C-alpha cells in the first residue's frame, strides 16, 4: 500500500516540471518550502555548489547530503536517469572509509547510476572533475577534496563553474579538513550530523543534517536548518526540535526489583583480560570490552 503511494508520489513529482526562476538551467529545491523560498526556488542547476564537513567526523554526513541532493537532481528526468560521477581521493578513503554502494542505495541513490573515480593526487581529481563536468550527458559530478590542496584555488573552481554553466552538469565540491577557502561556488553549505528523530525502541532515525548556508551569491546567508532526508519521498523535511530529545538509552534494563540485588556485575576490566572472579554485590551487566 505505502509502496504504491510512494510510487505515485514519485510519478507526480516527475510530471510537475521544475520551476525556473530566470536561471538558464533551472533549479532543484530541497522539497522544504522554507529553504526553497529562501533560495528563490532551490539550488541552481549547472552551478557549482560547495559543502564543508563541519568536522572531519561529519564527512559521512556531507557525502550523504550530497548524494541525497544529487539523487533529486538525477531523478528529475523521468525518461532516463543520467549518470553521476563521483571523484574521491585515496586520502579521503583512508580517513572515512570507502563509498558503500548498498548504503547509497539506502539513501535512494541508485549505484547503477554511479561512475566512481579514484585518484591519488589533488591535481588529478581536479582535472578528472573538469573533464567530467564537460560531459553533457551527466546529471552531476561530486568531487571530494581532502584538506586544502594548493591546486584547488579560486581559478580552479571558477574553471569548474564555467564548464558547468556550459554543459548543464551540476558539480558539487565536497570539502573536509579545512577552513573555508576562496572559491567560485554559487552556494556554500556547512553540513554536520545532527541527532535524528528516534524510531521505535530508540533506534536511530532518518539521516539528519544541520545545514548552514555559508555563502549565497544570490541572497543572504548565515541561515541554518535541521533537515531529515527521506529516501522514500525523495525529499528533505525540516526536523522539529521536539523530535530530537535524547531519550535515555537503557531500554533493556528496567528498574531492578526493590530489595533484590542486581544481576550480573559491574567491573571495569581492561580489554582481553579475564574478569576477576569476585562476587561483587553491586553489579550491572555492563562490561568494558574491545
Amino acid at each position, binding site marked *: 500500500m*505505502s509502496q504504491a503511494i*510512494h510510487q505515485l508520489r514519485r510519478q507526480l513529482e516527475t510530471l510537475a516540471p521544475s520551476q525556473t526562476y530566470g536561471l538558464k538551467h533551472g533549479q532543484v529545491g530541497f522539497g522544504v518550502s522554507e529553504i526553497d523560498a529562501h533560495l528563490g526556488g532551490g539550488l541552481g542547476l549547472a552551478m557549482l555548489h560547495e559543502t564543508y564537513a563541519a568536522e572531519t*567526523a561529519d564527512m*559521512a*554526513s556531507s*557525502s*550523504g547530503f550530497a*548524494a541525497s541532493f544529487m539523487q533529486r537532481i538525477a531523478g528529475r528526468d523521468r525518461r532516463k536517469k543520467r549518470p553521476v*560521477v563521483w571523484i574521491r581521493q585515496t586520502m579521503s578513503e583512508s580517513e*572515512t*572509509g*570507502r*563509498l*558503500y*554502494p*548498498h*548504503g*547509497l*542505495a*539506502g*539513501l*535512494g541513490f*541508485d*549505484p*547503477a547510476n*554511479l*561512475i*566512481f*573515480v*579514484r585518484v591519488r593526487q589533488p591535481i588529478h581529481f581536479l582535472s*578528472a572533475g573538469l*573533464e*567530467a563536468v564537460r*560531459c553533457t*550527458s*551527466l546529471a552531476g559530478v561530486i568531487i571530494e577534496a581532502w584538506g586544502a590542496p594548493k591546486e584547488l584555488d579560486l581559478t580552479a573552481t571558477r574553471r569548474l563553474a564555467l564548464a558547468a554553466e556550459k554543459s548543464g552538469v551540476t558539480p558539487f565540491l565536497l570539502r573536509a579538513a579545512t577552513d573555508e577557502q576562496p572559491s567560485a561556488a554559487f552556494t556554500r553549505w556547512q553540513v554536520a*550530523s*545532527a*541527532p*535524528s528523530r*528516534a*524510531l521505535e525502541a530508540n*533506534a*536511530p*532515525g*532518518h*539521516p*539528519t*543534517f544541520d545545514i548552514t548556508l555559508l555563502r549565497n551569491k544570490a541572497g543572504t546567508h548565515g541561515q541554518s536548518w535541521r533537515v531529515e532526508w527521506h*529516501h522514500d519521498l525523495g525529499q528533505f523535511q525540516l526536523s522539529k526540535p521536539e523530535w530530537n530529545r*535524547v531519550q535515555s*538509552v537503557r531500554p533493556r*534494563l528496567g528498574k531492578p526489583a526493590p530489595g533484590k540485588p542486581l544481576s550480573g556485575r559491574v567491573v571495569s576490566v581492561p*580489554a582481553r583480560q579475564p574478569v576477576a572472579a569476585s562476587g561483587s554485590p553491586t553489579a550491572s*551487566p*555492563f*562490561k*568494558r*570490552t*574491545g
Partner: protein
Amino acid sequence: MAVSREAMALGLTPGLTLADARARVPGLVAMDRDRTADRAWLELMADFCDRYTPLVALDEPGGVLLDITGCAHLFGGERALQDDLQARCIKAGMDVRTAIAATPDTARAIARFTIGKTQAIIPTGQEAETVATLPIAALGIDRDIDLALNHAGLATIGDLAARPRTPLAARFGTGLITKLARVLGEEDISIVPRRPLPPCTVERRFGEPIGRQEDVLATIEHLIEQAARMLEKRGEGGKSFEASLFRTDGAVRRLRVETSLPTRAGKPIMRLFRERIDTLADPLDPGFGYDLLRLSVGACAPFQQAQTSLDGHEMADEDVAALIDQLGTRYGKQAVLRFVGAQTHIPERAAYEVPAKDYPDHRLTHTQSIAMPDLEWAAPEPGEPPNLPVHMFEHPQRIEALAEIPDGPPLKFRWRRVLHEVARAEGPQRIAPEWWRSEDAGLTRDYYRVEDTKGRRFWVFREGLYSRETEHPGWFVHGLFA
C-alpha cells in the same frame, strides 16, 4: 666464448675456452655473458624487424626469423629488403648475416653456418644443393647426435642427405629426419610470431622521417580513417588501437588505447591518443625522426551504428562511454569504476568494484546468471532509515566499547581517541560467517546501528558471541552513516 670482430682478426674463434684465448692473446678483455641484456637486445631487434613484416619470431641465441611472404614487394623485392635490413643494422653497429629461403630452417642454417658471405638468397628448388656443404650442426640438433654423426664420418648435410633415412631415424630418432627435411626445403613450417597478428593493420612509410608530434598525430588520424574504412566493409569496430612508431635508428615506440565500446570513429580515438601522449611518463623522443607509422586495430567486434533517437539517448550513452575511456586512459582503467552487487550477507563482500570499461560485459554475464537484477541495489522499506552505512572501512577499525553482556549495544565507545556516548541504538543484526567458504571464516558478528549524542551515526559490531564463541569479543567500527 663468443668473440668480437677485432678478436676474430687476432685469430680467436667462437667456442674457444677462455684460458686458451688468454694464452694466445694476453691482453684479452673478457666479460661475463649477460643473458638478460642479450635477450633485451634481441627483443629490440625483433621490434625493429616489425617494420618489414608483422610475423617475427626470436631464434635464440642471437637470431631473428622473419616471415616475409607477401611483404617483399613493398620494399622493392627480396634483394632490396635484405639490403635495407643489412644497411640499417650496420648503421646501428651490428654485424649481421641474413639469408632468404623458402623455409625458415633453410634460411637459418645458411645464415648461421655459411662462411664468408653475409648475405644470401636461395632460389626455390636449390635448397638441397646450397645446404649440402654445411656442417651437420647447421641442422640445429643436439650436440650428442652431431658428435655421433661426425664419428660415423658424416661431416656435412650433403653426406647425411645421401644416406637412406630409415636407418637414421631408427638410430637417432625421427627428430633428426624432420630437421633434415626442413633444412633441405622439403617440408615447410610457419614460424610462431612473437606478437599475435592483429585483425586489421594499416601503415604509412615516409621517405623523409617525421619528427614533429603534430605530424605524428596527423598521420595517426589519417591511419585511423583508413582503418575505419576497412572495418566498415566488415561491419566491425575495434576496441583496442595500437600505434607503433618506428624510429629511423630502429627503436620502436608503441602507444595503445582502449575503448569500452567497439568503435571506428576517428575523433574519440584521436582524443584518447592525445591523452595517452600527454600522460606518458617518458615523453616521445623522435630522435632523428620516424620513418614508419603503423596502426593495428585489435579486439574487433560487430559494430552497430547507433541510431540517434529523437531524444538523443543513444548519444548520451556514447558520451559517457567516451568520458570513461578518456579518464581510463589518463588515470588507468582501475581508477574509473562502477559498482556491482553480490549475493552475500557479508557486508564487505556484498559489493565490488569493476573497471567501468568492462562494466557492460560484466553486467551482461551478471544479469544472466542471477535472475533478479533489479534487486541488486534494494532500497530499504519506505519509512525506514537506511540500514547500511554510506561509508565503509575496508578493514573494520577496532574500538574500545562499554556494552551490556551478552548482546547489548555499546553504551559508549572510544574510536580514534574520541569518546562517543551512544544516544540511540538498534540491533543486533546478526551476521554469521560463511563457514562454507573456508575453515576460519571468522566469528559471528552482531551489528548495531548507533547514534552518539552529537548525532553521528555508526555501524559497529561485536565479533564473536559471548561464551559460545569467545570470552572476550572485540568491538569494531565498520561503517559511517550519513
